[in-house]
């Protein structure tokens, strides 16, 4: 909407001011890499981080989330009684700093999944209290990313503020009224001049050649590539290698499937119904009573994952289910990768794709 500039040395001041009124989270350095975590000191915030092991999805969909508390009892007539009380977990004004454009694409998918159709009030309650401050990626995270192929190199319209580092300053775009207000209230910002905007365009156009393509086809072809290749031999090869560990879905910014479990306190009366991240790669995911499993083989489960990423989610929500962040590739112990698999399907079918398209 409107472009502002914030001198780089003003960033810690901005963060500190925000911290007075918000929970501020963002990428921080840990022993094993970078991770989204609470910013205790402004200097901890590292906006030039490569990637994080987990995407910021935990702020939208906690790994374990209480849906309601319950109390069960037996009344004087000996009948079982139930009391329940809904719980809305982790609802607090939160600012997520430094969200990459690929991860913003994941968030825009979550918004569709949880707010369209039946509204998920638990998601909504948290979502209403979250402000997203994106950061423009100026170089690829590492060799595993393929965001350029997936078209996630520019920010989708979910951010409240979006920052681009241009020499000694950040250019900040406001994406919402809340974002605008946030800048006015907490940031020492000035409106961008035409010179600032010219520098910004130069920075943005200079970034493109730094990213490479890894797919042999364009993303528009993915739904048809996957349709044609439903019976491909590639799935069997992957099924032989896959460990069905579920790491790939855990780290994925677009995976959202969950399990629901009841936890019972030691008094055997009180407890919580919880939802937990689940994975379609696990054997029990589609198992029903009587022992019938709709995806018995690992090959059928890994195919399902790819079908969702490249086809099904697109059919329903008009967004591809993969952002090209590369996290699943980094997490997989047997090196199963999205580009490697899609290229193998392409080779298997010798589909007439145009490798240069992006």
């Amino acid at each position, binding site marked *: 909407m409107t472009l502002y500039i914030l001198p780089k040395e003003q960033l810690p001041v901005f963060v500190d001011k925000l911290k007075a*009124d*918000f*929970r501020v989270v963002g990428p921080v350095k840990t022993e094993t890499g970078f991770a989204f975590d609470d910013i205790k000191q402004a200097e901890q915030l590292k906006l030039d981080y490569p990637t994080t092991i987990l995407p910021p999805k935990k702020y939208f969909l906690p790994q374990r989330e*209480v*849906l*309601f508390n*319950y109390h*069960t009892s037996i009344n004087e*007539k*000996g*009948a*079982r*009684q*139930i*009391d*329940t009380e*809904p*719980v*809305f*977990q*982790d*609802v*607090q*004004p939160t600012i997520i700093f430094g969200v990459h454009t690929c991860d913003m694409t994941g968030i825009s998918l979550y918004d569709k*999944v*949880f707010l369209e*159709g*039946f*509204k*998920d*009030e*638990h998601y909504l*309650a948290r979502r*209403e*209290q979250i402000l997203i401050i994106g950061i423009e990626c100026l170089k690829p995270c590492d060799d595993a990313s393929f965001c350029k192929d997936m078209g996630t190199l520019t920010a989708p319209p979910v951010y409240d503020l979006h920052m681009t580092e241009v020499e000694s300053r950040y250019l900040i775009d406001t994406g919402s009224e*809340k974002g605008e*207000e946030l800048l006015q*209230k907490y940031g020492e910002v000035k409106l961008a001049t035409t010179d600032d905007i010219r520098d910004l365009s130069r920075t943005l156009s200079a970034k493109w050649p730094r990213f490479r393509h890894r797919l042999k086809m364009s993303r528009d072809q993915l739904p048809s590539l996957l349709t044609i290749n*439903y019976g491909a031999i590639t799935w069997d090869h992957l099924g032989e290698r896959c460990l069905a560990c579920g790491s790939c879905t855990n780290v994925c910014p677009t995976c959202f*499937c*969950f399990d*629901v479990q*009841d936890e*019972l306190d030691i008094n055997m009366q009180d*407890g919580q*119904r919880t*939802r937990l991240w*689940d994975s*379609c790669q696990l054997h029990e*995911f*589609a*198992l*029903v009573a009587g022992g*019938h499993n*709709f995806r018995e083989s690992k090959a059928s489960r890994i195919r*399902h994952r790819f*079908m*969702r990423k490249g086809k*099904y989610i697109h*059919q329903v929500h008009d967004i591809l289910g993969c952002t090209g962040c590369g996290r699943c590739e980094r997490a997989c112990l047997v090196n199963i990768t999205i580009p490697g698999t899609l290229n193998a399907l392409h080779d298997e079918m010798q589909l007439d794709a145009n490798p240069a398209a992006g």
Partner: protein
Amino acid sequence: MLGTMTPLETTTTPRKYNGTSSIYLPTVATITNAYTETAMEKVFTVRLPGGENLNHNPGQFVMVSIPGVGEAPISVMSSPSRTGETFDLCIRKAGDLTGVLHDLVPGDQIGIRGPFGRGFPLEVFKGKDILVAPGGLGMAPARSLIDEILDNRDQYGRLIVLYGARNPAEILFRDTLREWRGRDDIDLLVTVDHPDESWVGHIGVITRLFPRVQINPFNTVGITIGPPIMYRFVIIEMLGKGLNPTQIWMSFERRMKCGVGKCGHCQVNHRYSCQDGPAWTYAEALAFEEAL
């Protein structure tokens, strides 16, 4: 705008939020009657608070839960025509939750969410001959449809019911079947895979009943509800009778954790069986690589 955000709260422990409710929170209902149907199935009558009508369609399901044990999808057995202050569920003992449910007695409370999903489209069925082929426990959701038709008999054409069970002991609703056999506005055939000494009816899998009925394929809808192994073969018979895939309805069983199209478990290709199903036409199912 920012002012609408609640003040900073440093704790991340669960708390209530603005008194809002939740799609995952069950309504507390009471069991008003329970009886044993077979060695594996029990029928429960359930009353929502204030005797509120469930307002369901045949083929829809509710999520039944016992806090501390879990939650599972269960089809509504009673027809809308017989649903007033209470509704019925027929539950097979299959695991943790259904096991505990079998121990419940009138007066006990359970959680109910729903009804969910797309049931059978009665407006499409009206004026047509109806061929219902349930297998095993599929007879419970089929009851909802059959009773609805019987209670609005003049709105439908012929009603043919072909029912298959594994053995005589597993046949559901024997008294009702006997009553149907006495009526001249319903054609009922029952078969068992494995007969015992007492059994004098048809023997063999459900598909063996199809040669025994004549239908008018131009004005019939076929409905099959049962395990995948059974409906695959029933559909072949229905096609053989001249029904086309848009005239055949089926009900998918899928694992379901939420009932509201979020959790991912019941996905069939890109559709969610808890939302767009569990009732599907065979024509729709054919378009899914995964379905059959």
